[in-house]
């Protein structure tokens, strides 16, 4: 049994790795076909992020928001409440943090912290909304969350436009953040900031929450079988609300950290769409926070590689969209490699059956 279980885990790992390889292969093929300098483009895409510390640091910087939305979506998917409100939470987290950054002057260190706390609370409250609507009126959380994302996107734009917009700026931008708001850098000569450490600490905390606490246990039971959770006496509505709050908080904090770590003004006139990256990460990690940093690193690496490639060669960085599409397709397609698994599963099942029933 142990061996068999092991082979299933191994199978899942192989499946994901193969999906990644195929996705990169497809994009490599596209680059080779379309580029004037195919080999150069490809080598920039695959290896340039390692060229300089600055590039590599870019990879780590981009991991930060991906890690937060990835964790958020892991929790959301664990609860089987397929809400994508994390997008709205992340965006509003950034808006609220910008408000704190511009309207308040606080001591260094405390300033970004206060922004994170407020953004987290706002994110959490927003995160709970689709869940509440579902509990009260059985509205599908996927639909309501997608629609609410628009509401919060426009609410965020309204706040920036009417309270924080810098009329002097030639493009859409808020006033400059107060300098006390900036998060300290952790690597000389790069923009890598303390947010990276907070992200990694969050990975540990979320793992702890899901797998070590009684609340995480409740969450997993609710996600695995809602009827069973009710029957066992678990307060399923409470579990749903608490978990969605935590998920929303993570996304909100992610938005705030992105602002204080990477930006001097608020300049997002369209949603950052990190929630969708969160979905990819949750898929890649099977909702286990333990693997989120790896998946975030992978996605981030590809993006930085594609960015560098588009700057230096004739290939557009939209190639990333193709890679992601192929990955999602292959991993979401349950039957991808299923025959191969079935064959080996059938063989072990038969062997097991024979030892159990026909011998001895």
């Amino acid at each position: 049994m142990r061996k068999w279980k092991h082979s299933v885990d191994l199978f899942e790992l192989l499946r994901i790795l193969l999906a990644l390889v195929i996705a990169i292969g497809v994009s490599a093929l596209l680059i080779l076909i379309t580029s004037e300098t195919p080999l150069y483009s490809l080598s920039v895409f695959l290896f340039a992020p390692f060229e300089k510390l600055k590039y590599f640091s870019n990879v780590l910087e981009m991991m930060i928001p991906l890690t937060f939305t990835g964790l958020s979506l892991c929790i959301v998917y664990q609860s089987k409440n397929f809400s994508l409100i994390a997008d709205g939470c992340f965006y509003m987290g950034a808006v609220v943090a910008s408000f704190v950054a511009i309207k308040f002057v606080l001591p260094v260190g405390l300033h970004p912290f206060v922004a994170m706390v407020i953004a987290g609370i706002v994110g959490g409250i927003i995160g709970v909304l689709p869940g509440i609507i579902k509990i009260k009126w059985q509205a599908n959380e996927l639909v309501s969350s997608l629609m609410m994302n628009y509401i919060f996107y426009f609410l965020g734009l309204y706040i920036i436009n009417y309270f924080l917009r810098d009329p002097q700026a030639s493009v859409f931008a808020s006033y400059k953040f107060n300098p006390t708001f900036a998060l300290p850098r952790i690597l000389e000569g790069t923009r890598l900031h303390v947010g990276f450490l907070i992200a990694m600490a969050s990975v540990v905390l979320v793992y702890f929450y899901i797998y070590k606490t009684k609340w995480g246990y409740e969450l997993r039971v609710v996600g695995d079988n809602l009827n069973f959770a009710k029957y066992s006496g678990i307060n399923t509505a409470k579990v749903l609300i608490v978990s969605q709050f935590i998920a929303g908080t993570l996304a909100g904090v992610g938005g705030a950290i992105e602002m204080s770590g990477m930006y001097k003004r608020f300049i997002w006139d369209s949603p950052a769409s990190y929630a969708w990256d969160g979905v990819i990460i949750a898929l890649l990690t099977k909702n286990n926070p333990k693997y989120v940093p790896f998946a975030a690193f992978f996605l981030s690496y590809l993006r930085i590689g594609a960015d560098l490639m588009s700057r230096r060669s004739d290939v557009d960085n939209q190639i990333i969209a193709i890679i992601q599409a192929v990955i999602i397709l292959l991993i979401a397609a349950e039957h991808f490699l299923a025959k191969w698994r079935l064959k080996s599963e059938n063989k072990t099942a038969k062997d097991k059956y024979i030892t159990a029933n026909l011998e001895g």
Partner: protein
Amino acid sequence: MTEIIKMDKITKIYPGGVVANYQVDFSLKEGEIHALVGENGAGKSTLMKMLFGMQRPTEGAIYLKGNPIVMKSSQDALNYGIGMVHQHFMLVPSLTVAENIVLGSEIKGKFFLDQKKAIEATKALAKKYKLSIDANVKVRDISVSQKQKVEILKALYRGAKIIILDEPTAVLTPQEIVELFEQLKLLKQSGHTIVFISHKLHEIKKLCDRMTIMRDGRSVGVYEVDKVTEQEISRLMVGRDVKLDIDKPEKHVGETFLDVKDVTYVDELGKTAVNKVSFSIRKGEILGIAGIEGNGQSELIELVTGMKKPTMGEIYVNQHPITQLGIKKIRQLGVAHIPEDRMETGIAPKMDVASNFIADKYDNAPFVKNKFLLDYKKIAVFAKDLIASFNVKTEGEKTLVSGLSGGNIQKVVVGREFSSDSELLVINQPTRGIDVGAIEFIRKKIIERRSNGNAVLLASADLNEILSLSDALIVMNSGHIVGYFPEASEITEEEMGLYMLGVKTQTAEEIRRACHA
């Protein structure tokens, strides 16, 4: 008689690695009634689903009159003249009997179904096979036994020469079973071949010509029915001699623990599923609820456990009214619940055995440390204990529940519920679809809890089980209690059948005896 069907070395492995059939040989002679016998989970239904095209064999071949056939769907099977009547009927309740029978192979008018022709065809068919049925009524308004007739007619209408009946008697009363057997014998006379899936030996003795016995996914032999005794069949089915009767020590009843007062439940569709039901259970006794499925037993169980809230009336557990309480509170009052459908409500399939054991007690003292962390060491010890004492066949406490067999999953459910400090056990279908060893074990555990002074409310579709386990008995028909029997051992299955059908009803006076306090 010629061999019409031959299934040759059939192996079926379900996704997830459950071996349901292993190298099974099965054959049918034209014009016989062939019993397919075996305990629940022996692989009978799987084998027949393959013969009916609903599942495809992993290995092996099927021959029709010597020619190999491959069926991709049940439509293919019907084209080959093979029909099946499932345990759970596949009918459209809002359509009439005639419409249901012709559904899928309608005689069309210009645009619409030709109602007249459909009704004529149904009547002709019913007459031909002497299956009396009203073609014009809606299926939702007819009884279970009539629905079964509709299913049989449906198969015949499609030209089935071979008809598979999956445990047709499970939903019928003893009187209806007699009628069904007459009809099946008529079908046999008209040249049809019938497969009769069952695990009730006396029925097979009465009806069938030959039998194939299955055990643990294999065929253990084909026999002429009149050449083997029931005892032999039973031994072949189980692989050892089964003790069918249960040792039950004298009961010692204590005070009333559960008191149900005038409870009515109207379901979402406006149907009064439970109608002014009152009864009580004392400590140390088992009260059985008998009835044909769908007469309010399941709803009653869910009302007592808090899964549903009554429309009217009150339920008292140890004198506390519970209808306003959540399930957790009700459990804390000492109620344990073994649900009807273990896969649907009884387990979290993708979690391990240990996690399933603690679902009702994970947030209490021994399993939580530092206020909110789970103490996995203590949970593992607890789980190992339960695995040993409930004889759960698993690699260990970390194995996913979905990887266990039905009987072992049920033991996980029973183990969890019996390990809480409960004083009232509410049990629905304790042994449905599990192996004999597990059945015996679970029944013994139920008796054990009764001897320890627990009150037990037991519902089961298995009449034999309910008669032999219960001390007292109530019978339900369309939401009402129609009979109360203080001594379950004094009533026969036939007598109970009359009450279940609603033919007999006790007086209000007699039924009131079900309340003790």
